[in-house]
């Protein structure tokens, strides 16, 4: 994975706005390489976000999520300094993750 993951969480009103950029080829299984062979499916299929240790978002994805996936979500009642973690698993069992703390608005 060339590009590192990125995350930003910032208070907006009474909610934390979280934006995540992951690094993954998200191969659909329909693309052909330069030899004309199909590139096998390789995609993030599960993403879990936690807020101070509690799961807030449990996402299941298909190969139709764009390459280097973007994910934005909001947590009501969060406060500046709260801890956010993201962890993903792809269809080959590879994993990745990142964490941050919520910044004040």
């Amino acid at each position: 994975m060339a590009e590192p993951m990125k995350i930003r969480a910032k208070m907006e009103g009474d909610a934390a706005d979280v934006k995540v950029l992951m690094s993954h080829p998200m191969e659909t299984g329909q693309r052909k390489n330069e030899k004309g062979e199909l590139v096998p499916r390789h995609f993030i299929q599960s993403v879990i976000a936690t807020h101070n240790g509690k799961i807030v978002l449990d996402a299941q994805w298909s190969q139709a999520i764009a390459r280097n996936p973007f994910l934005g979500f909001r947590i009501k009642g969060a406060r500046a300094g709260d801890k956010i973690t993201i962890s993903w698993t792809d269809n080959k069992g590879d994993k990745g993750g990142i964490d941050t703390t919520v910044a004040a608005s």
Partner: protein
Amino acid sequence: MNQLRRTFLKLSAAVFAAGTGLLQAGQALAAARNKAGFESKATADALKALGVSGAQQSKDIVITAPDIAENGAQVAVTVTSKIANTQSISIVVDKNPFPLTSSFDFANGAEGYVSTRLKMEQTSNVMAVVKADGNFFTASKEVKVTIGGCGG
């Protein structure tokens, strides 16, 4: 002696079972993958796999997506549900080879809001399916695609 060995075997079997039980409990934190839904090649089948029945059109679901996407490989889609107690949002691209693109389950204060980028093979309706208090609601928006983004 034999009796002792038997007891020991039973005990270790019990310990092993308890161990696997724990492992499964850990995995259960993540929702079981909706394989049938993600392998469906038609929207109707994907909706069935999601357990959707009697879904109502709702104006309380807002889909933000471009009217025309020049590059189908990166189509920004945001879904906001103003329906109370929104539990999950699924995004379905009707004309994609596999229409169900994603399901997002919310808990512990997460708002009914999600923003992501999708691949779209061709011009299609993008449908959001919201589950709230066990009921299903939908909304759709057409996105015209200039260059498809599945084989690229």
